[in-house]
């Protein structure tokens, strides 16, 4: 069999390096609603980060905020936040930001 093209992966099987294919899967583009954290209401309890399935809530020292490259917008953080500090805002409202994130 002649290999006609250059492969994107150097591996024979489905391996991926941590800094290449593994982390570049663009799950952020699947999101229809975005969690927006109200810094005033957030008491830094960390429940949202504990419950986040892909563990993408970033610890920003005095509050938490999602990494929008990976957040799929499931809304579990907003549901679990006992202070109601996280609002799920439709992505359409961020359309003027230009980028899909």
């Amino acid at each position, binding site marked *: 069999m002649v290999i006609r093209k250059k*492969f994107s*992966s150097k591996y*024979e099987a*489905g*391996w*991926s390096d941590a800094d290449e*294919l*593994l982390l570049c899967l663009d799950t952020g583009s699947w999101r229809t609603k975005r969690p927006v954290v109200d810094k005033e209401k957030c008491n830094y309890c960390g429940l949202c980060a504990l419950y986040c399935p892909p563990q993408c809530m970033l610890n920003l020292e005095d509050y938490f905020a999602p990494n929008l490259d990976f957040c799929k917008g499931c809304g579990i953080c907003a549901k679990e936040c006992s202070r109601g500090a996280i609002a799920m805002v439709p992505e359409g409202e961020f359309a003027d930001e230009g980028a899909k994130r």
Partner: protein
Amino acid sequence: MKVRKGEIKVITGNAAAAYGAMLCRPDVVASYPVTPQTEVGEQLSRFHADGILDAEMVEVEGESSSMNITAAATLAGGRAFTATSSWGLMFMYDAMLQAAGFRAPVVMANANRETPGILAVSCGQQDMVSTRDSGWVLIVVENCQEILDSVIMAFRLAEDIEIQLPVMVNYDGFYLSYLAEAVEIPAREDVDQFLAPLKLQPERTKLVPERPLGCGTHGILVEFMELRYKHCAALERAKRKLDEIDQEFGEFFGRSYGGQIEEYRTEDAEIVVLASGSAAGTARMVIDTKRAEGLKVGLIKLRVFRPFPRERLTQALKGKKAIGVIDRSVCFGWNCGPIYMELRALSPDIGFVPMMSFIDGLANMDISIPHIERVIDEVYAASQGKSYQEVTWIPLEE
């Protein structure tokens, strides 16, 4: 090089599979009992208890676990062995597909048994046929000695850097799994030497804590197609590799099986019977009888079902006047035998001669001498230009 003669023991087919695995020094063994394969795991546990098998024996709660554990062990760079049959094979099917997709070089013994539907605790190749499109290498063997030898060869094939594929060694359940016959068991050091070339190859990619890697974590669009492309290419390479390994095995141990197919008296044959598994042994005897009567008939034993030995079969069958295929399973939706269906796909290569499908031996029915005589007689009549029936369910049609 030729090695010293091994020890001859009278053992069952299941024990032969276990001996083959033990001699290859696997790091991990995990198998769940299912009739008629249970004895493989028992025998391996006995080896472990006796201190001659230094493997991690994982007690699993089902076949899905046994496949996932052995596949993971190979991805961590180890050598792993498992065994199953029929319902167990179906229960691990998703894990089998994962193992193939991950290119995990697991070796598995499968004692062929009929598949679920009717509770058929009996021999049939339907379980293997059901895994046709799993991406595994499917080897089919004829007797207890070939089981042992094929397990050893399977490790050489599976772990080869150019192949990296899981390999299943299939043998007829009941007929071979419980049949005790004399088997030559090679010395450990000789098997070590036979497997030594694997150590000279570049190391295959594996999971180690120092270097984090993902496996199967991506794979949409082009990356997925790329993996499928590489997988198909590896299966193509496996064909020639099988022939080479078989030849090398012959030079080492004095036994070889023809690689992808074994040709028996086919050279000057006008008609050919294609069979696989234990039925090939019976067929060989009948061929001799018919030859003595002056009939120019030959036998081809199919030794590998996936990848399908297209080139070797074409070469062996070109110019023959008629071909009969004996299948111990059915091809649903085509109303014929699966090996027959595959052979028909080679018609443009071989030539459009009469090809006939004979379904026999389902659920422990004997593929007997009179049955094979009948196959040869009918194929011969077709080769003489007589009209013929394409598909025959031998025991149902007098």
